[in-house]
């Protein structure tokens, strides 16, 4: 690896070019347009090539950050992507959606004094370069073992398991409930943040390697988990995500105009309803929109509503700015696009007209009290502060839970108190022989990279099992 002398930081962090806010808020194209080679190399040259790189410790899958960055500075982009692939199967995705500021970039030595190296942007650059100019050559594949693995769910964790196990010579079948593969990457995260083309290419790459993809298969309904073993699968990985929408349970919640973020984003992304009536699935168009919550899901919903032609879009969140869980980049982009933030505000009641349509939302002002179990200061209502926000569309993005569809039909799978599957954090083994689980269905809603990390560990453990036994 090229060693660079402790270079002083001169070059500032290279911003990635992006569509101007007043243009992009009317289209669904990707917001940041990507580094040029010059920008990428300028940014890469900022990395100090630390001997004990703290950034790597911040990455859940320990990407060799100085390694791939130095390959970019040397102009060896193919080497850079190979280096990335050895730890991370979906760099084009992670470069775009990882919460870098609390992971790799948050730990970068340069972040202490100034601005961190743009690890995510560089990762995206290497992956995009490969997609555009790479050979598309398939990775080497071990001789066939004759073992068969079923992967349930085609989100990032399932895709990772499939990729790892096909390379090790096993036969892999992905079973996906939706009509399209990709999990949250296709139904949740919008086109303007993660073009669906990228996900489709990643899936295609797996299929070219021999992974068998079967959509429209709802495990627990179309077939049970036990039936998969009857069909001679030797091992099963469950990566079914945390797709159960949570509502606020406040009066009036079933009025027309109140949707879960899952429904709203599925209509917009998976069903492409933003092209309605060119496509057949409609989506409600709000003039005055409120989004409840302040995570990535909320930002995505708010920015989608803006693009669909809302006059105003408000994020309504019961805690304060500091507690907002979304990636900093998304909050920043949302602000630029004119999304308003109503913080320390909590809805208590929906109001509708005589034909059942939402017309407004009654809210309370909150203040921060003592810290709660999560260590964040608990929001408490301010007496007599009730006020009304007029709105015709509310998107509820206050979190999600475990969908019981599969687990209910598999009684011998141990669940934790919230209904998530209990699995060994190191291996992904569940309490049921031959069954592994990982990603959001084990941890609760988390991140793409954590779901992939869990997939990689499980793939190793499945491979051991298929080689040596349980």
């Amino acid at each position, binding site marked *: 690896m090229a060693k660079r002398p402790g270079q002083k930081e001169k070059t500032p962090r290279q911003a990635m070019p992006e569509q101007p806010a007043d243009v992009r808020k009317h289209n669904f194209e990707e917001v940041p347009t990507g580094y040029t080679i010059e920008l990428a190399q300028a940014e890469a040259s900022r990395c100090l090539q630390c001997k004990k790189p703290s950034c790597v410790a911040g990455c859940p899958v320990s990407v060799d950050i100085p390694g791939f960055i130095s390959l970019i500075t040397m102009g060896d982009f193919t080497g850079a992507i190979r280096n990335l692939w050895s730890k991370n199967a979906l760099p084009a995705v992670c470069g775009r959606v990882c919460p870098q500021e609390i992971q790799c970039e948050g730990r970068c030595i340069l972040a202490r004094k100034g601005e961190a190296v743009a690890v995510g942007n560089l990762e995206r650059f290497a992956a995009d370069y490969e997609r555009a100019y790479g050979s598309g050559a398939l990775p080497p594949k071990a001789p066939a073992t004759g073992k068969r693995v079923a992967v349930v769910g085609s989100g990032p964790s399932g895709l990772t398991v499939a990729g790892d196990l096909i390379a090790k010579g096993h036969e892999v079948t992905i079973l996906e*409930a*939706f*009509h399209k593969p990709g999990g949250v990457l296709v139904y949740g995260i919008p086109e303007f943040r993660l073009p669906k083309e990228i996900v489709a290419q990643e899936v295609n790459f797996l299929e070219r390697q021999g992974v068998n993809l079967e*959509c*429209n*298969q*709802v495990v627990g*309904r*179309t*077939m049970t988990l036990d039936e998969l073993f009857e069909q001679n699968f030797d091992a099963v990985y469950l990566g079914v995500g945390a*797709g*159960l*929408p949570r*509502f606020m*349970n406040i009066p009036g*919640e*079933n009025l*027309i105009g109140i*949707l*879960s973020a*899952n*429904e709203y984003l*599925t*209509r917009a992304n998976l*069903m*492409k309803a933003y*092209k*309605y*009536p*060119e*496509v*057949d*699935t*409609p989506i*409600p168009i709000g003039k005055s929109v409120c989004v409840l919550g302040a995570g990535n899901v909320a930002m995505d919903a708010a920015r989608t509503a803006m693009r669909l032609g809302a006059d105003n879009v408000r994020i309504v969140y019961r805690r304060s700015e500091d507690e907002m869980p979304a990636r900093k980049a998304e909050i920043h982009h949302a602000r630029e696009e004119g999304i308003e933030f109503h913080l320390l505000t909590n809805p208590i009641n929906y109001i509708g007209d005589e*034909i*059942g349509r939402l017309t407004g939302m009654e809210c309370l002002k909150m203040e921060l009290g003592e810290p709660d179990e999560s260590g964040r200061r608990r929001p408490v209502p301010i007496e007599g502060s009730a006020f009304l926000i007029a709105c015709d569309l509310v998107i509820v993005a206050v979190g999600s839970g475990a*969908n*019981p*569809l599969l687990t209910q039909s598999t009684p011998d799978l141990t669940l934790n108190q919230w209904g998530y599957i209990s699995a060994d954090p190191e291996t992904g083994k569940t309490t049921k022989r031959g069954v592994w689980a990982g990603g959001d269905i084990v941890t609760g809603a988390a991140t793409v990279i954590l779901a992939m990390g869990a997939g990689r560990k499980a793939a190793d453990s499945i491979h051991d099992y298929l080689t040596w036994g349980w």
Partner: protein
Amino acid sequence: MFKIVRREEMAQGTVILNEIEAPLIAKKANPGQFVILKAHEDGERIPLTMADTDPEKGTITIIYMVVGKSTAHFRDLAVGDAYQDVIGPLGKATHIENVGKVVCVGGGTGVAVLHPITRAMKAAGNDVTCIIGARTKELLILEEQMKSASHDLRICTDDGSYGRKGFVTEALKEVLDDETVNQVVAIGPVPMMKFVSKLTKEYKVPTMVSLNPIMVDGTGMCGGCRVTVGNKTRFACVDGPEFDGHLVDYDELMLRLQAYGKEEKECYEEYCTLRDA
């Protein structure tokens, strides 16, 4: 791809039957369950109940009324054409048990949904009376099939053009007055289920209805299908589609079915104009 192997028109072409190749689903389905179908790449996901299944042949049968753009598109599919996606079986299967006397009440295309349930109720040893209704004679479907699925079939039309004149609720009231009924199953337009449930509540007869809210995924992940049953929010695609008829908030369901009314009407009209042009 899911090929159509048989197609029939009923009720003057307003109701269509498709028998579709879907071996995995056919093997697994039970009465009361539904599938979600999507005709083509940009199509909508449409829930329809399986009116019949043939596990040996590997086919399922759907019967649907043409009401909007997507069902109009389905109508244009011929034998040999295929649905791009069929997902299922979804929802809970009907609880079938020998309870004694059962009355099955169906209206409109609800009769198609009712048919496999009626047959199963009879096969379980129940004494089954069946009451089916339509606005007028030409719109009545599955008369022969319902006759053989039950012990006693009664027909009502709103205009008196066939069977007795009047609503199914009137015929049901007669049966309830004459005999001890242990269970009623009512499937049809929401107002019909509402009034049947109102009546059977007076007679304290347990009543099961099958609800048809707007759905997207059909697996419990969007919440678009939420209905209020016994003052609790339930997801019809996973908790239902069948519920205790005495506890359902029908007025809310009727309003919610209109959520996309305006957009869909425009879309349908545009589709028809294009198609007829």
